[in-house]
């Protein structure tokens, strides 16, 4: 029988929700031998319909609900929602509230990047670095607990400022934790990022050029690894970012190793940002007094911020009632997992799939919302 007539059937390998490296996300790999021909993503395991639920709740309840949208970097969601609503109403937050929000946003970025180091090394089978990284993130969660009273979900923001003031004890604990983490960074350098097996696993894997990254809608460290310095903190400064000096980390290669280095140097940047903020923290009120059932005036606003994963935007439409009329969350992981990952997975081997997936640092809860 002639080979050509017979339709070649390819094996489809499930990269399932119960795979240790996949998080809660399912993908079907069309495989020819070792190389992956095509990857078909199936999200939806963590879809709770956030945007529908937020239309039934008033703004304080939404501020509490919305930080469950992204599990690895909860504070960026709260920050986005509160700022979007404040932009509609044109509220001006007192100076101290701005500084506290920026400090907590940067601590959330450090927390998310350290958790990412842990997950990436677990996925690559590098268990000792995973145990150490997941032991280190306790320091930041401890700061969350002292400042906001909640460990993972701070529930710390409300429209008009912050719900609690930060104490001097928090300032001392933060500087101690930051010194410890700076020492750990050099440890991660020699233990993870310069490790021979790690570099060989990550180099030239999942490479995309600058034009491809822009066309696919990549943002955040994935885009900056391709050489484009798009950082919302620099281009559309919000909160207190215009008062701090920091530089945007970019690399040129665009492969998985460049993305890892981008995130590693961003931790160092965030540590220096928090130190600058703590040094000149203004006094005064940290919250505007608004009525309990405060209603935003009629209007629409689109607020973008730089979360740990990329550009996270909130499009809030308000019709004058205490509940928002429509909220749309632009989740960066949505593009990383459902557009970039299938593009990068083509012509890669099955063994590289977890390395590519977690070098894009996409959080399944953030993807499904």
């Amino acid at each position, binding site marked *: 029988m002639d080979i050509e007539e017979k339709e070649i059937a390819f094996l489809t390998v499930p990269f399932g929700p119960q795979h240790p490296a996949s998080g809660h996300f399912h993908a079907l790999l069309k495989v020819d031998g070792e190389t992956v021909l095509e990857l078909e993503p199936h999200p939806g395991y963590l879809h709770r319909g956030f945007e529908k639920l937020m239309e039934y709740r008033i703004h304080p309840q939404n501020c509490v609900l919305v930080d469950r949208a992204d599990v690895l970097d909860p504070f960026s969601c709260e920050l986005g929602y509160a700022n979007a609503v404040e932009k509609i109403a044109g509220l001006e937050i007192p100076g101290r509230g701005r500084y506290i929000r920026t400090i907590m946003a940067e601590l959330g970025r450090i927390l998310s990047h350290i958790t990412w180091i842990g997950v990436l090394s677990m996925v690559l089978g590098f268990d000792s670095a995973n145990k150490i990284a997941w032991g280190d993130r306790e320091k930041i969660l*401890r700061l969350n607990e*002292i400042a906001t*009273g909640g460990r993972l979900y701070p529930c710390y923001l409300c429209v008009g400022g912050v719900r609690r003031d930060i104490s001097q004890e928090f300032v001392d604990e933060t500087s101690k934790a930051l010194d410890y983490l700076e020492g750990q960074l050099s440890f991660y350098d*020699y233990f993870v990022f310069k490790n021979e097996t790690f570099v060989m696993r990550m180099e030239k894997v999942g490479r995309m050029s600058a034009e491809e990254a822009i066309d696919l809608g990549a943002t955040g460290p994935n885009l900056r690894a391709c050489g484009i310095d798009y950082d919302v903190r620099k281009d559309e400064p919000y909160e207190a970012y215009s008062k701090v000096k920091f530089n945007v980390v970019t690399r040129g290669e665009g492969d998985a190793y*460049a993305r890892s280095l981008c995130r590693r140097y961003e931790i160092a940047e965030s540590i220096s940002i928090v130190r600058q903020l703590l040094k000149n923290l203004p006094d005064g009120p940290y919250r505007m007094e608004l009525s309990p059932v405060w209603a935003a005036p009629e209007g629409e606003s689109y607020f973008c911020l730089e979360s740990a994963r990329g550009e996270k935007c909130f499009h809030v439409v308000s019709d004058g009632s205490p509940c928002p009329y429509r909220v749309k969350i632009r989740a960066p992981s949505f593009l990383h997992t459902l557009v970039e990952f299938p593009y990068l997975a083509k012509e890669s081997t099955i063994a590289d799939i977890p390395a590519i997936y977690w070098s894009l640092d996409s959080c399944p809860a953030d993807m499904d919302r």
Partner: protein
Amino acid sequence: MRKMGYLSDKFSRTFTPFGILKNLFRKPMTLQFPYETLPPVEGYRGRHTIDLEKCAGCFICSMICPNKAIWPAEFKGRRYPQVNLGKCCWCQLCEEYCPNEAIKLTPHAMMVTMDKESAILGLGEEGFVPRHQ
């Protein structure tokens, strides 16, 4: 010759004697759970307490609760808010919106149950009576 990488000396020598010695005498990172735990933080949002005298029975707390975890319950002829920990999300909105600070969140966070009914905090003399073991 292996191509030089991005950082200065790309491949660190994983066998670094001083590194091993430094780690040998470092305190272990793991806390032996039942004997050592991190001290609780006094501002932590844990289980609720209620001051029966201060409570005016206005039920603002049950209206503001995003998860509808606070329901009215009878106790000695008067209706008081009763918290169902199975629904609560510990967001402290009830404490913030209570006009005369009757309901408060304490840093107590040990809440483990075998059956679901004991998640509902019963009403007792000095406020909520947890029914856990």
